């Protein structure tokens, strides 16, 4: 079963500024901090970024599928962590209180967490067993 991760955040900057921070490579380099970035921010434009995260190098590849400035963009997203599956990252920017409510949805993720859940529950259940 593919899995979806959703994160929301309230930012003080307006949607136009947030949209630019995500889609202008010069800006992306400054906050996403990729060690390598290639980005053609248009529909069907390709992108590649490499990030260091938790002591490991993560190359990512994808394609922009929607760019609706300044309210929404969507890109496909493939990496080792997606097990070669073409996952989709959608970012919606809603004006709110003079700033922006950011809603990020990462869908189509492989359900390898399910395995972690199962292991975790087994561990909990066996520790309860130890109490007897």
């Amino acid at each position, binding site marked *: 079963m593919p899995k979806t991760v959703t994160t929301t955040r*309230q930012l*003080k*900057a307006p949607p136009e500024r947030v949209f630019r921070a995500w889609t202008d490579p010069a800006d992306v380099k400054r906050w*996403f901090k990729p060690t390598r970035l290639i980005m053609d921010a248009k529909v069907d434009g390709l992108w590649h970024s490499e990030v260091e995260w938790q002591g490991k190098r993560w190359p990512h590849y994808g394609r922009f599928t929607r760019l609706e400035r300044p309210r929404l963009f969507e890109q496909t997203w493939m990496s080792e962590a997606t097990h070669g599956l073409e996952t989709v990252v959608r970012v919606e920017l809603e004006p*709110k209180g003079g700033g922006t409510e*950011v809603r*990020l949805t990462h869908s189509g*993720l492989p359900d390898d967490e399910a395995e972690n859940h199962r292991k*975790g529950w087994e561990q909990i259940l066996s520790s309860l067993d130890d109490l007897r």
Partner: protein
Amino acid sequence: MSAALDRSFAALSDPTRRAIVSRLARGPARVTDVAARFPMSLNAVSKHLKVLESAGLVRRRRSGREHHLELRAAPLREISRWTSRYERFWSEKLDALDAFLEEEN
């Protein structure tokens, strides 16, 4: 024992509360600073904080008029196995975006 676990899991079954925990994992913070990060009222955030506190995941300390929040590590060590890698990844990246845009002002 199992009642405490039930409370921990129930407390973390909400994305806002997971985001609060993720923020506090980087260090203690003031209630007002945590609340400012979410698109909801201070009152709504306070309700989430109460759930986290009663589950024993978050501790509140008062110094003068300010309330500081910090994580309690022990219950979280077990629970960290359950949080998704990408949820942590995006939470960190959105923190970085927030910091970048704040610096600009």
